[in-house]
């Protein structure tokens, strides 16, 4: 819900006007050389002043009272003393420091266009700047197809960047020239040192604190997205401990013809004694006219179909609650079934696996099961010549796999999941889908202390013998039904595969019309035609997901006039 904009140029009003949907202007910090404005709810904006040093915080950040002293003594330690999702802008002398929280709970995009530095919570504010170019970055489209999001710091648009989680930018106010982000949040340097028993107890304590810390923002009757999976069920159990009467849980389904997890959610509701449970039906005929609004609210192209249920659920929950708890974070912090895929990839020593120096990167992208293998077929040869495929696709992963820290392979993969998927897909997506309906996300599993803990516990507390999130299952044994603790990971199964053949068929065909595609020269319309018909030479595939990705990209491109 909160937002922030800053510039060393004259266009602060332009930036804030484009963010007005996030709420009224709250606080300003300005000098001759820069201007910062926060927007949103009063409780999500704080200012600290001490002589020349100034700090403005946007988001759900809790900072110690002596934060300015700490920042002045040691910038990185000062930032590490803050807690919670948000953006901090700190001025000392001729330096302006712009920092993003360690977990990546709030996004920030920036540009150095026109000789000035400008940043904002959403790209659309930067696009409103005079003379801001809207050139598509070809390599970013390949990234979008492989990852379903852009892993940063470059974005889909030339000259606009996204600040990585746990990083800051240092801007020289005299000469605001482009500079690289610097990391300040280092969970990867924590070596596993806790025993299994200590790990479980510490998790219980930290998780309880994380939920309690967020509770005051939830209003008198906390709300929760309860999918029926392990992560949101753990949040439900923790909330139900003291709030079972006032807690409202919300689950969704896509109609009786499609599989759902309502029974699992009901089990949790019954087991935890939650008194107010709501089940919401999501159907294409109800949301299809709002797809453009959803893509506008997403702000950048995100091809994950789960954005849709986030958006639709938020529209209902936002009518009664100021904020909503969710279970986001469990996968990138404590589990994720794809980790086994990457581990077992090393076992057999296949020549094509071991002899390619980038074999881990390739396997990671392949395990994502988006459209990595589709890129050479889907993009026209002319468009593919505009970028270096290996650099764009594997490049963002190589620094993680090549680093000496963390020492465990599993933790390397988890770090990638947190820094890329967590900070550039999951959290921006959820935050923006909720903000569109005046809701704040409360994600206790994405707490910085939980992230730090995940690197301090034995890695086998996360994954073992085909099971994931072992520590969470141990911590909630007896507090959740065994069916929830023992069931395999499912994920939210949005039935796009069926929708694209039925209810959304004509809609997607219209958006992906051959005439339009031929004119643009980006996608090979013959391949798109095969996907639309659900008939390729490779046999059945994830057609629905691929069409959803193409559709959201085309809608985004058209809406933002790229």
């Amino acid at each position, binding site marked *: 819900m909160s937002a922030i904009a800053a510039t060393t140029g004259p266009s602060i009003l332009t930036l804030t006007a484009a963010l007005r949907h996030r709420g009224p202007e709250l606080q300003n910090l300005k000098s001759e050389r820069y201007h910062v404005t926060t927007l949103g709810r009063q409780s999500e904006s704080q200012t600290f002043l001490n002589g020349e040093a100034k700090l403005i915080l946007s988001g759900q950040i809790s900072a110690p009272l002596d934060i300015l002293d700490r920042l002045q003594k040691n910038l990185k330690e000062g930032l590490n003393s803050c807690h919670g999702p948000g953006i901090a802008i700190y001025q000392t002398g001729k330096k302006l420091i712009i920092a993003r929280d360690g977990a990546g709970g709030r996004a920030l995009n920036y540009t150095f266009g026109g000789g000035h530095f400008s940043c904002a919570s959403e790209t659309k504010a930067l696009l409103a700047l005079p003379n801001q170019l809207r050139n598509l970055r070809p390599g970013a489209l390949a990234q979008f197809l492989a990852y379903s999001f852009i892993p940063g710091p470059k974005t889909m648009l030339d000259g606009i960047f996204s600040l990585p989680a746990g990083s800051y930018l240092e801007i020289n106010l005299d000469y605001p020239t482009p500079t690289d982000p610097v990391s300040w949040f280092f969970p990867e340097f924590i070596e596993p040192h806790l025993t299994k028993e200590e790990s479980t107890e510490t998790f219980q304590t930290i998780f309880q604190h994380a939920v309690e810390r967020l509770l005051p923002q939830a209003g008198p009757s906390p709300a929760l997205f309860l999918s029926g999976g392990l992560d949101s069920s753990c949040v439900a159990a923790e909330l139900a401990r003291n709030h079972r009467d006032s807690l409202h849980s919300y689950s969704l389904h896509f109609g009786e013809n499609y599989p759902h997890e309502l029974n699992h959610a009901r089990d949790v509701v019954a087991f935890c004694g939650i008194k107010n449970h709501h089940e919401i039906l999501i159907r294409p005929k109800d949301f299809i006219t709002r797809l453009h609004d959803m893509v506008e609210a997403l702000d950048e192209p995100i091809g994950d179909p789960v954005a849709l249920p986030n958006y639709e659920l938020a529209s209902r929950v936002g009518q009664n609650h100021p904020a909503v708890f969710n279970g986001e974070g469990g996968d990138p912090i404590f589990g994720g079934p794809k980790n086994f895929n990457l581990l*077992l990839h*090393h076992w057999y020593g296949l020549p094509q696996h071991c002899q390619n120096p980038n074999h881990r990167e390739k396997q990671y992208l392949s395990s994502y099961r988006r459209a990595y293998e589709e890129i050479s077929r889907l993009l026209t040869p002319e468009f593919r010549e505009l970028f270096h495929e290996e650099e764009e696709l594997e490049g963002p992963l190589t620094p993680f796999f090549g680093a000496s820290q963390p*020492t465990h*392979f*599993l933790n390397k993969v988890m770090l990638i999941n947190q820094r890329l998927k967590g900070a550039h897909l999951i959290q921006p997506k959820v935050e923006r889908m909720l903000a569109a309906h005046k809701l704040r996300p409360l994600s206790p599993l994405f707490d910085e202390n939980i992230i730090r803990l995940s690197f301090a516990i034995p890695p086998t507390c996360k994954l073992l013998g085909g099971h994931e999130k072992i520590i969470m299952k141990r911590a909630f044994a007896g507090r959740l039904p065994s069916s929830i603790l023992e069931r395999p990971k499912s994920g939210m199964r949005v039935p796009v595969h069926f929708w694209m053949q039925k209810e959304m068929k004509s809609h997607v065909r219209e958006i992906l019309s051959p005439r339009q595609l031929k004119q643009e020269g980006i996608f090979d319309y013959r391949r798109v035609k095969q996907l639309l018909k659900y008939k390729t030479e*490779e046999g*059945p595939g994830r057609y*629905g997901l691929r069409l959803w990705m193409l559709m959201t990209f085309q809608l985004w491109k058209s809406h933002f006039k790229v």
Partner: protein
Amino acid sequence: MVCKSCSYEFVFDPKVDTITPSTPLHDHLFKKIINHASANGTYHFTENQFHSSARHFGQASLLGCAIVFFAAIALFLAGVIFQVTAAAILGGFFLFVISIGTTVNFLRGKGPKRNHWDRLVRKWLKYEHQIPGLITSPALTRPPPQWQEKDIYDYGVSGIILCDRPETVDWLVYNQFHTQTNTLILTAEGYPTYLINLAESLLADTPDLPVWLLHDPGTAPESMKKKCTLPITQFIDLGLDSETLSRLTILKKRFSSRDRATLALDAIPYRTFSAALTHCIATGVLLGSILGANATDSDTDTSFG
């Protein structure tokens, strides 16, 4: 033969090389068969699968049979109705006979016999042409390098699949079935050898780890158990018999009933097989039951994406 315009040297001479007496083989068709076997470069395939794909291209077209059949009937009736010469009636009769022959040919699934196909493959390879995706078993002879990280083998698996042939192990591993299902795949006799110690330690850590037996219809599971040296107390036979294999529509089109009785499981296209096997190890239902009931539309794992 050499192409005059681009100097491409052809491997096959359609006048001499055929996949059936009525289907000449040329380089383009051979490449189409490779493409079919690999699902347009998506999968690795075994020699059995390559042969199965060749049989697909050797089939007479059912539509063709129907056209010839009805043309013969029409010609014959026209001859009778318009009282044209006996020659026309005779011509119609011959067409009718040909159509019957072609239909029988179709129903019997005429394609190249295995030995004949193997000769054609060798001819292709002799000209130093590659067959991308074709697995030459046994392929898993060298262990992986020492990895920089020490925890690669620390997290266990969901189960172990024991196969009766190295070809089946190679087929599944090259197509990454092990990474997708979190399983260790070996033969009962211990191929690949460099993973035996790992299998032993996994079983020592988790004595009740599921161990599935995956075998051709012609292999007795008991013989696999006898050959297995791993400390396993309970095996789960995935249970694929020749009757089930014989009933699969896709194989009926390619092989005669006699041939189907001796087919190996890798005659089934990978996508269909892997979807069935995934379902099977997740639910405990027999592989034969899943394939036989056509419960896998080969899109099982992707229905929601």
